[in-house]
C-alpha cells in the first residue's frame, strides 16, 4: 500500500520539475538571437522536424489534402513541441519534395517561435537557383515595401535525422507580420487566390460572391460576407472610376498610388511573370486594409517566377490591368513609374544584388549538391545561379535603355538631379 501511494507522488514531482523547461514561447527558452538569426539569411541554419515515420509517409501519399500532422520543431536549442505540419502550395505542390506550413498553434494555443505563430518551408520547385523569392523580397524591402523575411535552411526529418534537402524558410504574412511592419494587426488581411481561367486585373465585379473564393480572409475570418467584401468591392470600384489624369482624387482613400507604383516597378524590374501584371492576371499578393480606414496595401508573396528574362520590357502586360493601364497611359504616372524603375536600377547597379546572389549561392551550394530531393541537377542549379547573377549585372542597362527610349526626360531629370546632388 505504501509503495502505491509513493509512486504517483514521485511521478508528479518529476513532471513538476521537468515542466518549467517547456514553455509556450521560444523567447523564454534561452535561445540565441531570436527569429532574426533564423531569417536574416546570414547563415545556413539547420531545422529538424521530428515526425512519426507513418505521418511522414502519409503526408507524401496524401499531399493534396492539406491534413496537419503533429511534429516537434527544433532549431538550435529551441524545440517547439506538438506543432502541426501540412503540405502547402499550388503549382509547386508535389509528393517528392513538398513545401510545408508549420503551425506552432495547431495543437497548442499561444505557442510561438519568437512571436511567429507559423512558418513556411518552400521547396523552390520552379526555381533551380533557389534564390528568386528570397532576392525579390529583399529588393521589395530595400525599396520600402513590407515583404516577408526569408532564408535558406537545411531540413532534417524524423527520429533518424534524415536530410530532406534545402528549403526556403519564410515568415507568413500574418498578424505578427502586420504588427512588425505596420504597428497594428486589427485590420483586414486577405490572401489572393487566383482562380483557374481568371485573368483578373481590377475589373469591376458587382457580385460580392465573386470575391469570396479569391480573397481569403486571414483576419476577421468569421465576419459576414458584407463586412469582409464590400470594402474590397469599393476599392475595385474606385480603381475603375478614378480619372486617369488624377487617380488620387478618387482612389487616394483606397490605395496609395505611389506605393503601388513602387511595387509594380520592383516586380517589373525583376521580370516577375506571375505577379501584379503577370500573364495570367494579378497573382501572388496579400491585400491589407488598415484598421478603421478604407486604405489598403498590396503585400508581395511567392516571387519565384521573377528573374525570368533579362530583356523583358518593363511595360509588358501593363495593358491587362485596369489600374496599370491607367498608370501607363497617363504621362504623369507613367513617368513616376519609370522614375521608380530607375530607382531600382540605381540600387542594383551598386552591385548589391549581384553580390547578394553570389553570397547566397556560395552559402547554399554544398547543401544543394547534397540535396537528395531536389528536382534539378547540380549543373542546372549552377547555371540558374549564374543567370541570376548575370541578370543582376545586365538588367540595369536594359531598363535604363528602355526608360531612355520611352521617356528621355525622366532619365535626364535623374542625371540632372544626380549632378546637383541630393
Amino acid at each position, binding site marked *: 500500500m505504501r509503495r502505491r501511494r509513493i509512486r504517483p507522488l514521485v511521478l508528479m514531482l518529476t513532471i*513538476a520539475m521537468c515542466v518549467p523547461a517547456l514553455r*509556450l514561447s521560444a523567447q523564454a527558452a534561452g535561445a540565441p538571437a531570436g527569429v532574426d538569426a533564423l531569417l536574416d539569411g546570414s547563415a545556413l541554419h539547420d531545422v529538424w522536424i521530428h515526425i*512519426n515515420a*507513418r505521418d511522414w509517409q502519409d503526408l507524401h501519399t496524401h499531399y493534396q489534402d492539406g491534413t496537419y500532422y*503533429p511534429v*516537434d520543431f527544433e532549431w538550435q536549442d529551441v524545440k517547439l513541441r*506538438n506543432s502541426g505540419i501540412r503540405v502547402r502550395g499550388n503549382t509547386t505542390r508535389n509528393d517528392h519534395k513538398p513545401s510545408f506550413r508549420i503551425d506552432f498553434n495547431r*495543437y*497548442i494555443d499561444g505557442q510561438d517561435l519568437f512571436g511567429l505563430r507559423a512558418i513556411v518551408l518552400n521547396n523552390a520547385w520552379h526555381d533551380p537557383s533557389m534564390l528568386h523569392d528570397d532576392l525579390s523580397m529583399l529588393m521589395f524591402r530595400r525599396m520600402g515595401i513590407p515583404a516577408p523575411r526569408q532564408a535558406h535552411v537545411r531540413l532534417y526529418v*524524423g527520429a533518424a535525422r534524415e536530410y530532406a534537402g534545402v528549403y526556403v524558410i519564410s515568415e507568413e504574412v500574418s498578424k505578427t507580420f502586420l504588427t512588425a511592419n505596420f504597428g497594428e494587426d486589427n485590420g483586414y488581411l486577405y490572401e489572393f487566390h487566383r482562380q483557374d481561367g481568371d485573368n483578373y486585373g481590377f475589373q469591376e465585379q458587382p457580385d460580392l460572391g465573386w470575391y469570396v473564393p479569391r480573397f481569403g480572409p486571414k483576419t476577421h475570418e468569421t465576419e459576414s460576407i458584407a463586412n469582409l467584401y464590400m470594402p474590397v468591392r469599393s476599392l475595385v470600384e474606385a480603381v475603375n472610376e478614378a480619372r486617369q489624369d488624377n487617380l488620387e482624387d478618387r482612389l487616394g482613400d483606397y490605395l496609395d498610388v505611389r506605393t503601388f507604383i513602387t511595387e509594380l516597378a520592383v516586380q517589373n524590374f525583376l521580370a516577375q511573370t506571375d505577379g501584379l501584371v503577370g500573364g495570367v492576371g494579378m497573382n501572388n499578393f496579400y491585400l491589407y486594409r488598415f484598421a478603421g480606414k478604407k486604405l489598403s496595401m498590396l503585400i508581395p508573396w511567392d516571387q519565384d517566377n521573377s528573374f525570368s528574362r533579362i530583356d523583358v520590357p518593363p511595360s509588358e502586360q501593363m495593358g491587362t490591368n485596369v489600374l496599370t493601364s491607367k498608370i501607363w497611359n497617363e504621362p504623369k504616372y507613367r513617368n513616376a513609374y519609370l522614375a521608380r524603375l530607375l530607382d531600382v536600377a540605381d540600387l542594383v547597379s551598386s552591385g548589391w544584388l549581384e553580390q547578394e546572389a553570389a553570397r547566397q549561392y556560395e552559402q547554399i551550394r554544398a547543401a544543394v549538391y547534397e540535396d537528395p530531393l531536389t528536382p534539378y541537377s547540380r549543373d542546372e542549379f549552377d547555371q540558374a545561379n549564374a543567370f541570376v547573377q548575370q541578370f543582376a549585372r545586365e538588367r540595369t542597362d536594359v531598363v535604363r535603355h528602355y526608360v531612355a527610349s520611352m521617356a528621355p526626360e525622366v532619365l535626364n531629370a535623374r542625371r540632372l538631379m544626380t549632378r546637383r546632388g541630393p
Partner: protein
Amino acid sequence: MPPRTDTLIMVRLATFVAVLSAALFAVAAPAAGQVKLTFDKHPAIDFGDTFTASVRVKSQNDWRDFPSEPGADPKNVFDPYRERIAVEGKILGRVIYHVEREFHETSSPWKNIYLDTRVIHGLHLQGGQFNMPFGLDQTTSLMNLDFNYHSLAGSFLAPGRGLGVMAYGDFFKKSLLAYEAGVFRQDGDNTRSAQLEDVRVAPTFAGRIVVKPFSKWQPLHFVRSVETGVAFTEGVLPAGLYSLKGQTIPGDAFVQKLYVNGRRRRLGAQLQWRPGPIGVQAEAMRVRDTRIGQGIEDEDLPNVVERAWYVSGTWLVTGEHKKDTITPTRPFLNGGYGAVEVGARVERLSTGNGPTLNPALFGPRSPYVLPTADLVWTTGVNWYLNKFFELSLNVIREDRTLPRTATLSSGPVWSRTFRIEFGL
C-alpha cells in the same frame, strides 16, 4: 465519390434478406385462406407459418434549447432526430429477419439488418449488422430509452453496431443466466475507425454475461428483477487518429483526438432493477487503447484510457410497471391521462492521464493526454399518451473539465430538449 464499402455490404445484406424471404415465400406458396392481416401495435401480414412481416415506424422529433457557445457551431432548434422504418418477421417459423433504415441520417442509413434463428435450446445464432453486446444503454432500443439521449457511456464508449455473427441464449428458468458472444468485422459504428472508407477486416470480439441472481427468490419478490452483468470487447485498432470520441450534449467534441494503434479493450459492468413502477439502472465502462509506435519519434506511447459511468432512476407516477416498453393502463383521451414517468440520471465521461501544468505537453502524439471530462445531470418527464405517442422533456446540466485554452464553456451549461415520439 464512390459509396463506402460498408454501405455496399449493407445494401447487399438487405438485398440478400429480401431475396431469401421472397424465395422461401414463393416455394411455400401459402393458400390464400392462410393469409392474415393484423394491426395491433403495428401493421403485419401473416402467411401462416411460412412467412410473416410487420412494419415498424420510429419517429423522434426534437426541439432543442442549447446554449450559444464560443467555438461551437450553431445548432438548429428543430432536430428530426430519428425517422426510421423497419420490416421484420419470421420465415418458415424459424428464421427471424429484420431490416431497418434511417431516413434522417444519410451517412450510414442502414441500421439493424440481420437474420436470427434458434439452433438448439440455449443457442441462438444471429448474423448481419446489429448492436454488439456491450453496454446496456447502447443496446436498448432508442424508443425505449428513459431519457432523450443515450448516456455518454453508451454513445461514445460502447461500440454500437457492427457487422458480424453472434451466439446467444439463456440457461435455467427465468433467464437466470444469459450470454452473448460474437465476432465482428471491425469495431462498432460509434467509433472513428468505423468511418474508414477502405474498411479492412480488423476483427473485434465481444461478449456479455447477464445474471438475475434473485429471479427465483421467493421471499423478497421486489429484488427478483435485479439483473447484473459484465461485458467486454477486444479488437484490432488500426493505426491513425482513431481514439474514441467524446461530445458535449449539444454535440461539440471535447475529447482530444489521438493517434492509436494496436488493440482496443473495453470492460463494462451493468445493473438493472425494476421493482414495480421504479427503474434503477447503472453502468460503468473502461476502454483502453494501445498506442504502439505512435510517438513523434515512432516510440510506443502509454495507453489511452477513457472511463464513463452513469446511474439513473425512474418512477412511473401513474403506477404502471417499469418495462422496456411502457403501455399506459389508461391511455390519454381513452378514459385516462396516459402514463407519466419522472427520472433523473447522473453520468460522467472522462479521459486524460497527464498533468494540467503546461499545455505544451499535449498533442495527438504526446505521451500525455489532455485531461477532459463531462459531468452531466439529466432530469426528465415522459408522458406516454398511448402505445403510439410519447412526449418527453429533459433538462440537462453539464459541468465540463476542459483545458484552459478551450473555447467551449466549462459550465455549468444548461440544455433543454423536448421530444415528440411516435412508434408503430
